[in-house]
C-alpha cells in the first residue's frame, strides 16, 4: 500500500514497461487487468498462490455470508432459530439488554446508556488535536461528574445503584479507560524512578515492576478480590469494583512503565547533555526535553498495552464482576437459547474488535501527526 503512495520507495519494483502499463486515462477494468497481471500472475508460483487464495476465499466467504446474513434469523424464538440454517441473531435481539448492561436495574438502563454515549462522545472530541485546550480538561471533569451521577444515582431523584450491580459494556469501558488513564501517569513515574540515580527510589520501582510483571493478571485480581478481604477484619469491606480496578491499574502500570523506559533509553545522550548545558534542572529537562520525545517513540508499544488492557478486563469474571463478556455468558444461562452460543460470542467479539480497531487506527494517525516534525 505504502509503496504505491511513495514512488521513492518503489525502487525495488521492476520498472514497468509501456506494454504493461496501460496508457493514462485508460478505463478502470483495463487498469485492474494490468495490475493483476503484474502483481498476481507474474510468475508460476504467484499464479499458483493466487489461484489457491481464490479457491480458499470461494470456499469460505460465501458459506460465511450465507450463515451470517442471508440465511440468518433476525427475529423469532429458539424454535424458529432451530429450523433456520443460518445464524440466530434473534438471540441478540432478545438478550441485548442483559448483554450490554448486565445486572444494572432494567428500568434504569437509560442511565448507563447516556453515560456510555457521553464517554464515547468525549473520547471522539478528545481525539481531535484542535480541541486540545484547557477547556477540554474542564469538559472532562464535568463529563466524569455527570457520568458518576448517572451511574451511582442517589441525587437529583435518581435511584441509587450499588457498584455491584454495574455491568456490561459500561463496566468494561470503565475498567479499561480508568485503568489506562490512571496507569499511564503512574507508569511514567515508575519508568523515571527505575532510571533514577537515587538507589532507594530505583530499588522500589524495580521491585514493584518485577513483582507485578512476575504474576499473571488473574492472580493480581484474585489477590485483590479474594485474599485481601481475608486480611481485613470481618465486616469491613472495600468496594469489589474498586479492588478490581486498582488491580488492573497496578498491573497495567508495571507493563507500561517498561514501554516508557524503552522510550527513555532511546533518547540520544546528546539530548540530555544539551539540556544540562542549557542549565535546565531535572524536572525541566524531563518534562520539556526527554518525555515529549520518549513518549512519541513508544506510542506503538503503549497502544499495544492499551489494547491488551481493554481485552484483559474480561478476566474480572473471576472476581464475579459482570463485565461485557460475563454478561454475554450469563445471557446464555437460559437453556433454550444456549445452543446459539456462537452468535452471542460473535456479538461480544465484534464489540471488542470495534474498540480495539479504533484504538489501533487512532494511534497510527496520532503517530504520523506527532512524527511530522522529525520526518526527513
Amino acid at each position, binding site marked *: 500500500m505504502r509503496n504505491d503512495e511513495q514512488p521513492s520507495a518503489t525502487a525495488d519494483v521492476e520498472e514497468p514497461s509501456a506494454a504493461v502499463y496501460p496508457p493514462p486515462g485508460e478505463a478502470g477494468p483495463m487498469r485492474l487487468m494490468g495490475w493483476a497481471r503484474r502483481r498476481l500472475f507474474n510468475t508460476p508460483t504467484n499464479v499458483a498462490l493466487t489461484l489457491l487464495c481464490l479457491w480458499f476465499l470461494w470456499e469460505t466467504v460465501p458459506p460465511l455470508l450465507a450463515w451470517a446474513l442471508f440465511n440468518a434469523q433476525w427475529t423469532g424464538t429458539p424454535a424458529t432459530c432451530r429450523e433456520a440454517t443460518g445464524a440466530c441473531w434473534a438471540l441478540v435481539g432478545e438478550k441485548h439488554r442483559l448483554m450490554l448492561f448486565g445486572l444494572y436495574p432494567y428500568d434504569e438502563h437509560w442511565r448507563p446508556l447516556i453515560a456510555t454515549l457521553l464517554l464515547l462522545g468525549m473520547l471522539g472530541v478528545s481525539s481531535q488535536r484542535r480541541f486540545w485546550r484547557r477547556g477540554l480538561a474542564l469538559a472532562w471533569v464535568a463529563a466524569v461528574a455527570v457520568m458518576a451521577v448517572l451511574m451511582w444515582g442517589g441525587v437529583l431523584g435518581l435511584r441509587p445503584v450499588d457498584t455491584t450491580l454495574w455491568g456490561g459494556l459500561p463496566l468494561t469501558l470503565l475498567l479499561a479507560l480508568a485503568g489506562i488513564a490512571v496507569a499511564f501517569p503512574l507508569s511514567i513515574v515508575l519508568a523515571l524512578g527505575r532510571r533514577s540515580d537515587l538507589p532507594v527510589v530505583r530499588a522500589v520501582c524495580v521491585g514493584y515492576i518485577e513483582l507485578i510483571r512476575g504474576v499473571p493478571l488473574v492472580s493480581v485480581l484474585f489477590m485483590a478480590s*479474594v485474599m485481601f478481604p481475608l486480611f481485613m477484619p470481618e465486616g469491613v*469491606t472495600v468496594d469489589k469494583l474498586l479492588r478490581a480496578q486498582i488491580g488492573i491499574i497496578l498491573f497495567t502500570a508495571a507493563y507500561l512503565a517498561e514501554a516508557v523506559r524503552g522510550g527513555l533509553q532511546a533518547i540520544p545522550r546528546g539530548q540530555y547533555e544539551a539540556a544540562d548545558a542549557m542549565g535546565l534542572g531535572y524536572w525541566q529537562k524531563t518534562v520539556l526535553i526527554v518525555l515529549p520525545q520518549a513518549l512519541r517513540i513508544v506510542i506503538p508499544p503503549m497502544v499495544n498495552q492499551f489494547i491488551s488492557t481493554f481485552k484483559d478486563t474480561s478476566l474480572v469474571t473471576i472476581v*464475579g464482576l459482570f463485565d461485557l463478556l460475563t454478561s454475554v455468558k450469563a445471557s446464555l444461562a437460559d437453556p433454550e437459547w444456549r445452543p446459539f452460543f456462537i452468535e452471542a460470542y460473535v456479538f461480544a467479539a465484534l464489540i471488542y474488535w470495534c474498540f480495539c480497531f479504533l484504538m489501533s487506527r487512532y494511534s497510527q494517525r496520532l503517530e504520523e501527526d506527532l512524527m511530522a516534525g522529525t520526518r526527513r
Partner: protein
Amino acid sequence: MHPIKTVFAVAALGLAATPAMAGATFDAVKAKGFVQCGVNLGLHGFSAPDDRGNWSGLDVDLCRAVAAAMFGDSTKVKYTPLSAQQRLPALQSGEIDVLARNTTWTLSRDSANGLNFAAVNFYDGQGFMVPTKLNVKSAKELDGATICVLPGTTTEQNLADYFRATKMTFKPVVIEKNEELTSAFLAGRCDAISSDGSQLAAIRANETPNPADFMILPERISKEPLSPAVRHGDDQWLDLVKWSLWAMMAAEEKGIGQQNVETFLTSNDPDVKRLLGVTEGNGKALGVDEKWAFTIIKQIGNYGESFDRNVGKGSKLKLERGLNALWTNGGLMYAPPLK
C-alpha cells in the same frame, strides 16, 4: 462537623463495630436490613439473572425465604455473583452472609474450610446421557466409550474413579465450555456425555433436536447434595437458614401452598398451627417474627412449588422430583418437626 473529621469518625465507627459483629452474623444482618447472598454467575434453575437482570432459581428462593423469615419481606436480599474459585473465600471473609450457589456438601468444606451447611435443597449426582440409537441401557455397558466431560471440576475425577473401580476403560473428550461440550456431544464426537443429572436433563430438554433420541442412564456415579452454607461462628444464623428451608418442606408436606396458605390459618391441626405461628413459640425460638413461616409460604411458596417453578415441570429444565421428592413420596426431603 468538619468533612475530614466525619471521615475519621465513620472509619472509627466501622472499625469499632467490627468485634461486635464477629460471630454474630444474625445481628449484623438484622442491623443492615438485608441478606447478602452469594449466588452463581448464571446457572439456570438454581441462580441466574433473567433478561431483565432479576435473579431467580431454587437457590435464589432459599435466599428470599431467609429474608422473608428475618424481615417479613422476601425482596430484602442483595446478590453477589461468585465464580467457583471465589465462593468459599467470599463466605469466609464475611463478604456474604449465606452461600446458596449449588455447592456440594462435603466433609472438608464443612470442617476445614470453616463452613456450616444448613440442609440439602437439591440432591444431584453425576450421570451419563447417550443417544438412544446406541442401545446402551446401563453405564456398565460403556466400556471403551468416548465420553465428553468438562475439565478441572470434580466431574472429570469422578468419571476416572468410576471407570477405574469398575475396571473399564474410556476415552475422555475434554472441552472447557459447557455449550461447546454439548454441541460436541450432539455432533457425535463422543458416545456419551457425563455431567450432573440436572444438567443432563436440561440439555436433553432444551438443546437436543428431539429429546426422545437421547436417554439418561440410571446410574449415578457421585453424590452431590447441594446445600446452602454459612460460616462457622453463628449458630443462631445457621438455625434460621436451615429452618427457613425446612419450613418450606413442612408446608409442602401439609399441602400448604402460596395460594391457600390463608385458609390454613384456621386449621385445627396442631402442626399447622405451630408452623404458621397461630400457636406461638417457633418464632421466638429463632429470634424472628412468629409469622416467619407464614411469610415464607405466602411470598415464595412451599418447597414443591419452588422446585416446579425453577427446575421442575413448570420450568425449562423439566426435571423429575426423583430424590428431591418428599420422604412421603419416596424421596429424601424430610423436615424435622417444627416444634
